[in-house]
């Protein structure tokens, strides 16, 4: 086994592959030889056509499924160890809130699992509600909230125990365009406030370009990295979406995607 990655790197994939049902007739090569390194505090977007293995790569990073070949390091440790050390928070497309828990108690769920005291928990959940601007809704149940508010709760829950890495799988995929843009701005504000490293899976090109410092473009199955595009738009704001450079980057990502499209 090789040496671990330097600690200033949040996530590193070395020649990582994932084959599901290996050797069986229904074998699926989901990922092929992924090399990727995300620096601490960075914001990286993964984009690619549906089924290209974005979610699988995220789950590999999360230590939820093991790589078939190659290695994944998170904060200098094997991904599975990082999972056990609670190094990251996760958010999914469906907010996956527990509908029998109030907003506050949803946010406190990871803290309960970590054995925090009640006082510590309510102090932290109040902070997190403040961070996602839902302080008035702590006693509400998830089904009383809009989709955007539910996602904000999910983000608050993911960050409640201050993990150093946030892994997000199309978290805004189910939201309408207006809410989505609002949530993107919110996420960037939270990212700047908390200095968490973010890996963000999306299939929206403008979303990837608006949010990320780097956009990783993946090919259709088996997923490979085909482009690694730096996005240098400075601090995002209302003007960003009208910035010519924003459009240039969108075009660049689109062309990278088109180049690998299967006809």
């Amino acid at each position, binding site marked *: 086994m090789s040496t671990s990655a330097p600690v200033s790197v949040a996530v590193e994939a070395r020649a990582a592959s994932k084959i599901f049902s290996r050797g069986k007739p229904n074998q699926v090569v989901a990922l092929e030889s992924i090399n990727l390194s995300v620096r601490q505090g960075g914001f990286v977007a993964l984009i690619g056509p549906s089924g290209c293995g974005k979610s699988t790569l995220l789950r590999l990073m*999360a230590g939820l499924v093991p790589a078939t070949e190659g290695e994944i390091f998170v904060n200098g440790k094997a991904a599975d160890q990082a999972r056990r050390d609670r190094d990251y928070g996760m958010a999914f497309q469906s907010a996956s809130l527990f*509908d029998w828990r109030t907003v506050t108690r949803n946010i406190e769920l990871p803290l309960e699992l970590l054995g925090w005291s009640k006082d510590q928990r309510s102090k932290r959940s109040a902070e997190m509600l403040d961070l996602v601007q839902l302080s008035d809704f702590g006693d509400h149940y998830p089904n009383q909230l809009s989709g955007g508010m539910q996602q904000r709760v999910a983000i608050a829950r993911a960050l409640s125990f201050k993990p150093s890495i946030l892994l997000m799988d199309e978290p805004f995929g189910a939201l309408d365009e207006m809410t989505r843009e609002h949530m993107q701005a919110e996420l960037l504000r939270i990212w700047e406030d908390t200095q968490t490293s973010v890996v963000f899976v999306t299939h929206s090109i403008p979303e990837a370009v608006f949010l990320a410092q780097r956009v990783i473009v993946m090919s259709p199955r088996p997923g490979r990295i085909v482009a690694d595009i730096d996005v240098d738009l400075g601090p995002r704001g209302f003007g960003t979406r009208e910035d010519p450079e924003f459009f240039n980057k969108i075009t660049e990502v689109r062309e990278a995607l088109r180049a690998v499209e299967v006809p």
Partner: protein
Amino acid sequence: MDSLDEGVDAAVVRAEIRRYERRARLRNVVRRVVVFAAFVIALSLLYSGYKAVGQSIDDAQRDWPVIGSVMPATNDLIMPPISAILSEFDDPPQRRNAKTLGQFIFEASLFTAREAFFGFVAGIVLGLSLAILMLRSRTIERGLMPYVVVSQTVPLVAIAPIIVIWGQTNFGWLPFTWNAWMSVSIIATYLTFFPVAVNGLKGLQSPSAESIELMDSYAASRTQTLLKLRFPASVPYLFAALKLAASASIVGAIVGEISSGVGGGIGRLILDFASRYTTGPERLYASVAGAAVLGIVVFGLISIAERYALRGRAQENPVV
């Protein structure tokens, strides 16, 4: 989220919404009570109407033999009038005892309810244990589930006497003395554990893959995932089962009493009045009505508990 009008305080709006919700809940309860009362009245009218028609035909034309031959006869022995059944509640059934039939039925109901309650609780414990066991492994599920299902196809009247006979053993190792009614509880357990096991398993398996991954991402232990995710997710499924199980436990207790002869409960009361039917048919009807009320009360209690336990959740009821 922003208030619609600067002058309207969000707290006032929310209080207004809560008041509205409370009114809606109250309306809902009233509607249920009215519907139920209407149902009971309709049933009584049907009964009395049929009886009235049968009686008038019987009196007028004896050569038109439908009621009394292909349909039940309507005389006071076979269909006592509802007024007679109701007034019977107030009559003492025993000559040297001032206790009214209503009191007898009430006490017998409590006795049966106790049997059913212990059986019910034991059934929940057994059913949930089986569900958790089957959750642990597919192999166990596939091996166990057929037997769980088959257990319910054995007729209750066949196993009830066996259980009661086993119960006559002197279980010296028990910290309490075994009573005959406890054997009846076991019969209730036998009917109760089944819906709890089947629906409980369905509920424990109901969380989405993402919810399970979320727990895994927190490195939650299996027990933590069970207690914080799977079990709460199964509560709506469990209540659907508990409503079935509660009625089943009453039925189990009554059938258990009848087929084993254990005395003191409503089943035994029904058995006694059935054997002395000709001297007082109203008593049998009254005690059957008592058993029905017991079932309805138990069902209602579970429904109330369900509403409380599921408050705040999405409205959809899981399909049983």
